[in-house]
């Protein structure tokens, strides 16, 4: 087992280099750089000054040279500073000689996106699990069909539209929830309890929107997993030896039906750091999606590469964790790995 783990981790290094190389080249395939944004198409900004900027950012060098410069910084875990906002470090905070701390861009955006995604994942699981089980137990009856219909509507509904409607209803017509933003303006002056309540109120709609659109996947997964397991021989055996229906379903069927979910969660780890551009724009939440989108529009290469690299690392770790968890949960897989 240990040997297997070490092997997997060592293999991640060439994989990461490959991913970063491909990302870097694809990024440079797109036309333009930081000096060719629409805002800089300004007669007051001369071509010579733009050329000077290109040299300062090493953008005039061949892509392979730029890549090696980036790699040289990366091996010391230096993600560099953003082109578009000159002074901000991409990943983590820096301190200048006067002791001024400048927070990193990913450092600020990541916790926000993580919080929203974790909350909505909790919401999804806590709603989708019972829905899936109820659906499976009432297969093809009205309950099953209503649930399926409901989750499909949630899946199909345009998130931005639903978001705007709910914002109007809960924010403009009734003063129940704040419309946009992450915190109220007077957030600092509140006590910690009020601060948490304030943040949760601001997050309610974004979490609900991303929850309702993600419900369909997990609940159908659970439903179908349950149905499959319920037709297995060992369930028949359990029933025939006289176990109560409760024990059959929750003790034997559900546990086995949940196994594939491990894979899904493993794969959703990188998704946890990726925010939705549309939701973040509408709700004015400064998360990872907006950060990445703006960086792409501005051709802010250090930020793009920073986010892609962190995403790649998390994807690889997620895969590994999923495999390990699977082996831990399912003896059959464990035996396969050891062999």
């Amino acid at each position, binding site marked *: 087992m240990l040997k297997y783990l070490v092997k997997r981790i060592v293999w991640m290094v060439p994989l990461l280099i490959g991913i970063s190389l491909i990302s870097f080249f694809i990024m440079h395939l797109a036309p333009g750089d930081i000096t*060719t944004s629409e805002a800089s198409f*300004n007669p007051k900004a001369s071509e010579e000054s733009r050329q000077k*900027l290109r040299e300062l950012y090493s953008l005039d060098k061949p892509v392979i040279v730029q890549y090696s410069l980036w790699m040289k910084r990366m091996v010391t875990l230096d993600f560099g500073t953003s082109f578009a*906002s000159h002074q901000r470090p991409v990943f983590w905070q820096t301190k200048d000689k006067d002791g001024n701390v*400048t927070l990193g861009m990913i450092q600020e955006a990541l916790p926000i996106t993580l919080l929203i995604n974790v909350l909505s994942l909790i919401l999804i699981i806590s709603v989708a699990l019972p829905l899936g089980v109820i659906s499976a137990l009432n297969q093809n009856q009205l309950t099953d069909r209503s649930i399926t219909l409901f989750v499909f*509507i949630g899946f199909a509904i345009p998130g931005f539209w639903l978001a705007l409607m*709910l914002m109007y209803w809960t924010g403009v017509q009734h003063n129940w929830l704040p419309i946009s933003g992450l915190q109220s303006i007077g957030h600092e002056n509140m006590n910690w309890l009020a601060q948490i309540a304030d943040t949760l109120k601001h997050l309610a709609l974004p979490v609900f929107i991303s929850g309702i659109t993600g419900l369909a996947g997990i609940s159908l997964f659970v439903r179908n997993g349950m149905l499959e397991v319920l037709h297995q021989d060992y369930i028949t055996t359990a029933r025939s030896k006289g176990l109560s229906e409760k024990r059959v379903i929750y003790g034997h069927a559900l546990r086995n039906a949940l196994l594939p979910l491990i894979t899904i969660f493993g794969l959703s780890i990188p998704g946890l750091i990726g925010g939705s551009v549309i939701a973040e724009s509408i709700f*004015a939440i400064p998360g990872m999606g907006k950060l990445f989108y703006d960086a792409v529009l501005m051709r802010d290469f250090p930020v793009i590469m920073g986010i892609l690299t962190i995403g790649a690392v998390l994807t690889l770790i997620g895969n590994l964790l999923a495999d390990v968890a699977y082996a831990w949960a399912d003896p059959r897989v464990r035996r396969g790995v050891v062999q």
Partner: protein
Amino acid sequence: MMEIKHDQDQLVKLQFIKPAFMKLALIAFFTPLMISACGDSSSSNQIHNKIDYTKNYPPNNGGTLIDAMTGEPSGLIAMIAGESAASAIAGNIFNSLLRYDKNLELTGELVESWDVSNDQKTITFHLKPNLKWADDQPLTSDDVLFTWQKVTDEKTRTPYGSDFKLVTKAETPDANTFRVTYAAPYAPALDTWAGLHILPKHLLKDQDINTTAFARNPVGSHYYKLEKWKNGQFLKLTRNENATQGQAKIGNLLSRIIPDKAAQFLELSADNIDSMGLNPIQYARIFPARPDLNKNIALYKELGNSYTYLGFNLKRKPFDDIRVRQAINYAINKQEIIDGVLLGLGEPVASPYKPGTRWSNPELKPYPYDPNKAKALLKAAGYEDHDGDGILDKDGKPFTFEILTNQNKEREMTGVLIQRRLNEIGIKANIRVLEWASFLGRFIKPKEFDVVLLGWSLSLDPDQYSIWHSSQQAPGQFNFISYSNQRVDKLLEAGRLELNPDKRMKIYHEFSKILLEDSPIVFLSAGYGLTAIHKRVRGISNPAPPAGIGHNTYEWYIPSAYARNEMSEH
């Protein structure tokens, strides 16, 4: 694999659900939302609607004005940040030597007066006495010199240095005098000094200006100082007690970052923000239909800072023929574009200058819509429909070209209207929409285009050398349509050497006249800037002077009876 099979079963089964049930469920699900969306909107904001915002109060100090921006500044040193969000905020914090008044005439800001030497090469600025930074340090000509050194420094990452590099000598004879000498008279100099924010030397002299923390924690000299900046959320400015231009009335300016215009609009309707920029649909369609909004919110319009144009690649046939260019100009109905695209919220322009300012030649009128004249001109240029296919041709080749534009809804709609009018006189135009970077890199720089649909700003200084002078045609320069006219070249050169505003005005009136006649571009329209501001904010000039409603924000005030409860702000 098993799961996938089940999913497919599921989909197949779904189709067998009775349509009636489906419909019922949909109705049940959507009805509450629809009611909430279209229902009785007078129930909203009951608290706010009870306040009568029409009473008159004398000006007073205090209160907070909350507005919304779509983008966040990257820093508050404008010469480095560059984007409009940064200039908007930094403009409240930093002073320049000069400023534009409400009629867009230059006047002193940090300076009391300025003299131009007889040979027009030297400008001497006399600073007002006893100027102070927000941290109580004196603001002197040393700071001005330092700012000039920084903007011209090779190491400074600014695209705006070239104008200031024309200064051959900058000196500070005393603490209140700053003198610059140019190798040759340079008339746009005054405009450039009106755009350069003066930075404090005592805080920046040991810093790398590109990365300094000062950009996020600035100390300036204007009406406001930065109190708090929450990344991605808001910037809060509060009054600067040492303000060089006197005290502003409104106590705090709070700019919230809300990228989505629809969300901004909801915040405005819920009275969580006081001011936002509107688009024509919100201004001309939504507001007239919502009396409850009009009760609390006032709308303002002002001429914007840019115009849209159709530019010809003059290096390509047949656009080198003035008759063809004029014909296309006559064939386009500009009013139709203003009515259709801007919902009437714009003006036709006939020169690259703001109508109503001194640089705009009042005698010039845009080409009227006259398809017959267009046809006659094209006939004179040799274009007729010889083969009867509805498209004009010359030497066996049909008159067809491509209109290039970037991803911009208003420009795309404008292109469609132009396409239709050109089709009517027998010209086949295709529209091609491109993402900005490839538009610039693959088509504009190598000049691989027939016709572009783009915008230029209506500049405050009349100098447009970099756009129209024949020497500015190299790749990456701004005369990418390759306009070349010796008389225009002479006028543009003369205009740069003349610092007397009245003499300069004559030069640029003449320039605009030739430009209109020559028709290297078709001036299409200049849209209005549209702003909604809550009626609690008073002292706003309406109708807006040429400089726009923002020219006197320091005189705006919020009567204390109308000030919002600071803690309840979302």
